[in-house]
């Protein structure tokens, strides 16, 4: 019987809810493992889950510096989509979308995946043409996409200022109906429980302070809770990639760490039932089940590990929100926070073996890592288990910059703050 079901809920309710097992154990680290995963965020936990489930490798430790899910998996704006232009990205993110569609069932954990659609607004005919091109590229690879007219958009989002008097009038949009949102914390907890029940040790408050080496080969890590050896050491630390790789003696990476802020308003009655993005700036918004509008914009634009940003971006994001939804002018912002993003040089991720023997690397998620969580773990687990990438992540190499094989969906060039 599934651990969580209507029956188990009822049975535990009758017994005063005293018999629930913790979703994951709190084990002490063993002296050695087959695989160590550094980073107990969404990607590290999903990697551990798929290593155990798909490849039968369960002698695995996930090492987390803080508490589980305290990093970007708990800080994002929860949007899930696969509306990319370039085939390598589209295939990968569509694989992720398919895993999302069955995730609650697979994990026996309600991740509240809601396919409420994601609409990119176009504000000029040229932008609308560009969306048509992207939509066609998506449909060519079997991903759903449809163009919408202003009248259709008005019916979908009544609060949107669709008039000619808007600061940037809306001329149309590109909709992916299968896109949506998921409850980010539940994703971390669901993967953690799934991995834990298959024998993976999730070790919190365990900071990696260095690497154990035999010549060039990585043979384990030193941590705040002692040395731990492993045949394979996988790094999935997002914004901390530079710091962790420097511990391994890799001085430079094609990554810059930047801070991205996010915001939530006080709870409102149902206001918007889709994810909408602004085309004349960088703004995206959805409404949580609790009623708060969850929204964000661009990264602050300078290197930062601070997990907090500055006011100019706050001002910009609010302006963009009001350009689309003038009716929100009196709504109060409840909370804002920041997360550290591993901005890569072409805006696409890295999931690869190496760069040192015995090491595996997962990074470069920019500020779009949440939607990738299932496929990132799935592909990283494959890469770790088989010592070679799956087709889905074969293009996401570390040496693609050196070889001129960049995957630059936005066409921005090697400028991480613009991706």
């Amino acid at each position: 019987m599934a651990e969580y079901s209507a029956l188990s809920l009822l049975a535990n309710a009758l017994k005063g809810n005293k018999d629930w097992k913790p979703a994951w154990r709190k084990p002490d680290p063993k002296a050695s493992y087959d695989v160590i995963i550094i980073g107990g965020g969404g990607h590290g936990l999903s990697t551990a889950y798929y290593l155990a489930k798909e490849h039968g490798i369960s002698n695995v430790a996930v090492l987390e510096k803080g508490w589980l899910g305290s990093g970007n998996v708990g800080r994002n704006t929860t949007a899930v989509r696969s509306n990319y232009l370039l085939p390598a990205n589209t295939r990968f993110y569509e694989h992720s979308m398919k895993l999302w569609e069955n995730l609650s069932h697979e994990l026996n954990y309600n991740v509240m995946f809601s396919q409420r659609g994601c609409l990119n607004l176009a504000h000029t005919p040229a932008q609308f043409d560009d969306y048509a091109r992207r939509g066609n590229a998506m449909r060519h690879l079997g991903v759903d996409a449809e163009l919408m007219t202003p009248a259709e958009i008005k019916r979908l989002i009544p609060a949107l200022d669709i008039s000619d008097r808007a600061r940037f009038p809306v001329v149309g949009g590109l909709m992916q109906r299968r896109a949506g949102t998921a409850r980010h914390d539940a994703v971390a907890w669901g993967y953690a429980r799934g991995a834990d029940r298959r024998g993976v040790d999730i070790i919190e408050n365990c900071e990696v302070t260095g690497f154990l080496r035999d010549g060039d080969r990585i043979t384990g890590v030193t941590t705040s809770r002692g040395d731990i050896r492993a045949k394979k050491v996988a790094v999935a630390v997002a914004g901390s990639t530079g710091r962790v790789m420097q511990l391994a003696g890799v001085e430079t990476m094609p990554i810059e760490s930047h801070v991205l802020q996010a915001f939530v308003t006080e709870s409102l009655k149902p206001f918007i039932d889709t994810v909408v993005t602004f085309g004349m700036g960088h703004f995206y918004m959805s409404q949580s089940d609790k009623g708060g509008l969850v929204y964000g914009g661009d990264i602050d634009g300078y290197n930062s590990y601070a997990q907090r940003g500055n006011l100019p971006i706050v001002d910009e994001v609010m302006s963009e929100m009001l350009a689309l939804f003038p009716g929100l002018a009196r709504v109060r912002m409840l909370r804002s926070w920041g997360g550290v993003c591993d901005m890569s040089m072409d805006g696409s991720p890295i999931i690869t073996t190496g760069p040192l023997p015995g090491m595996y690397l997962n990074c470069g998620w920019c500020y779009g890592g949440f939607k990738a969580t299932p496929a990132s773990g799935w592909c990283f687990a494959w890469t770790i288990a088989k010592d070679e990438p799956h087709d889905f992540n074969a293009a996401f190499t570390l040496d693609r910059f050196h070889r001129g094989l960049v995957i630059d969906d936005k066409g921005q060039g090697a400028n991480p703050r613009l991706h």
Partner: protein
Amino acid sequence: MLITCPYCGPRDVIEFTYQGDGNRERPDPASQNFEAWNAYVYDRLNPAGDHNEIWQHSGGCRAHLRVVRNTLTHEISSVAFVRGDHASAARRKAEGQS
């Protein structure tokens, strides 16, 4: 975040444009050293701590500045002109000492 421009004094960060990592060395334009170009374009130190970076006071005097800023705290410990001390150079020129 305030940046103290050597010309203009302390100004809000909104007046400045970030121009990125100041540790990179651009190879000579005629250079065909592939590795040097690759390092210039793609490789970053990305330190957690003091970071040497270039900002332009684009909403003010437009000078390019070399700033040392802590990426963990956003604290700025030094601001200087990218190419030496422009002000004293200008003064010397005006006084006919160049």
